[in-house]
């Protein structure tokens, strides 16, 4: 149980649909895909997947050089999304520098692109003499959190959780707990990642990347669908500005939704394969944390990345707890899998679904896999009162996480 109520008062997004919440939601509501062919991938021996969901609509030069020099793309995405979230929440420079606001933003790893550029040069003659002074700041694991704090002038706590696909769900959960404990009043929370062939390659090597739709990229990934054949990697950043209810009311801020529960657990059965029992435990713990009965949950925003095993395991877990009582969809069909950014990009969409009273279906779900038919899938854009939502993320490494949102009354 959260000791103090925690609400969301700002959101920011950088995604394949461009920068900003409006562009994100427009993409979802128009049923668009952010996936395209990436020619770079075809030049890599052993790489069978040729598609990805790349971020668009970003001008890094909006960030002054003084701050940008220590950023790779992932920090650029996170910083722009944080600026938008802070603006939406009506925060000014003094609020950001008050010490009451902290940052909880993670990525899967430090910049793989910068790492590659460094080693490509280093390996030519084993020399450090051409190494720029700011390179380290691109590749440190807390690059996004630190770059955001430096650019926005944040003086509160810095946290940089890293748990691959669970990163931003954890970042939000831990930030909420920090506010609930009274350690901070506000937290910029979420995740960011930049696309690199290494990410797609990681899944391709494990036979978990989509390879059958290289010539029709918008038809993949296909969560829950009979023809699904794996993950499509993406990039971007999703940011939620969390705030104690007291602080939000005191400022007269517009409250977008409330975070009422969070859980994260480890699944030691396998470092790669999801286990329905562990996933179900995670959701159950989040429900207990939120003091909510399964019957009160209207919608499950699934992790569902379109892998054979992951989608089935998640449906099994959802079915065990919710039966067919809650509607289910995954947003990976639209955005691919933005890794550390996926949780908060999808949470931001969940907040908008609550506010707009509608549910977004799973793109490319044409024929439900019989093994995924044990839950109720959202069919088309559905006008539906949405009070309570559970959002799941599961990561390689056996890290599960679930967040529960509720309409703020």
């Amino acid at each position, binding site marked *: 149980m959260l000791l103090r109520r925690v609400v969301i008062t700002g959101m920011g997004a950088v995604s394949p649909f461009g920068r900003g919440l409006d562009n994100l939601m427009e993409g979802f509501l128009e049923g668009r895909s952010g996936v395209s062919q990436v020619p770079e991938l075809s030049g890599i021996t052993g790489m069978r997947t040729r598609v990805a969901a790349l971020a668009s609509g970003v001008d890094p030069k909006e960030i002054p050089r003084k701050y940008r020099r220590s950023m790779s793309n992932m920090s650029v995405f996170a910083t722009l999304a944080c600026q938008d979230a802070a603006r939406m929440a009506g925060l000014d420079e003094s609020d950001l520098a008050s010490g009451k606001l902290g940052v909880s933003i993670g990525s899967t790893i430090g910049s793989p692109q910068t790492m590659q550029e460094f080693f490509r040069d280093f390996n030519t003659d084993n020399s450090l003499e051409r*190494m*720029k*002074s700011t390179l380290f700041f691109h590749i440190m694991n807390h690059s996004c959190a630190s770059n955001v704090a430096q650019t926005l002038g944040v003086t509160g706590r810095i946290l940089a959780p890293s748990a691959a696909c669970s990163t931003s769900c954890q970042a939000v959960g831990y930030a909420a707990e920090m506010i609930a404990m009274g350690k901070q009043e506000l937290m910029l929370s979420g995740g960011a990642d930049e696309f690199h062939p290494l990410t797609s390659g990681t899944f391709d090597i494990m036979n978990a990347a989509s390879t059958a739709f290289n010539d029709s990229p918008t038809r993949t990934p296909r969560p829950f669908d009979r023809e699904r054949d794996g993950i499509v990697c993406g990039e971007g950043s999703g940011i939620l500005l969390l705030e104690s209810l007291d602080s939000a009311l005191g400022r007269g801020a517009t409250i977008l939704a409330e975070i009422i529960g969070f859980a994260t657990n480890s699944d030691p059965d396998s470092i790669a394969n999801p286990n329905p029992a562990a996933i179900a435990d995670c959701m159950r713990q989040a429900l207990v944390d939120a003091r909510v009965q399964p019957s009160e949950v209207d919608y499950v925003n699934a992790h569902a990345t379109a892998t054979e095993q992951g989608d089935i395991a998640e449906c099994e877990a959802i079915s065990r707890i919710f039966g067919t009582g809650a509607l289910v969809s995954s947003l990976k069909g639209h955005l691919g899998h933005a890794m550390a950014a996926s949780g908060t990009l999808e949470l931001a969409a969940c907040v908008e679904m609550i506010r707009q009273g509608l549910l977004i279906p799973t793109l490319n779900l044409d024929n439900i896999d019989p093994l995924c038919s044990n839950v109720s899938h959202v069919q088309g854009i559905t006008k539906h009162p949405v009070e309570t939502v559970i959002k799941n993320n599961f990561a390689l490494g056996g890290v599960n996480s679930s967040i529960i949102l509720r309409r703020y009354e």
Partner: protein
Amino acid sequence: MTDQQIVEQINSSLAEEFEYELENMTPETTLFEEMGLDSLDVVDLVIVLETAFGMKIREEEAIRKIRTLGDIHSFVIAKKRQTENS
């Protein structure tokens, strides 16, 4: 390279690296106050010059005394001439 070519090469390299307007670069332009460089930038400035002119200058004592673009012009020109004559 003539002295003028060296000056132009320095200015264009630094303008690109530090996103500074070429037309605002004069020999009197100060690196720290006007161009806004700091200690990290100075490390990169040395690398930019080493790459542009194919010389090693990182350990040169004179680097630490550089304050203006004109100081850099004089330093690099002297270094180039010294290399050519050795």
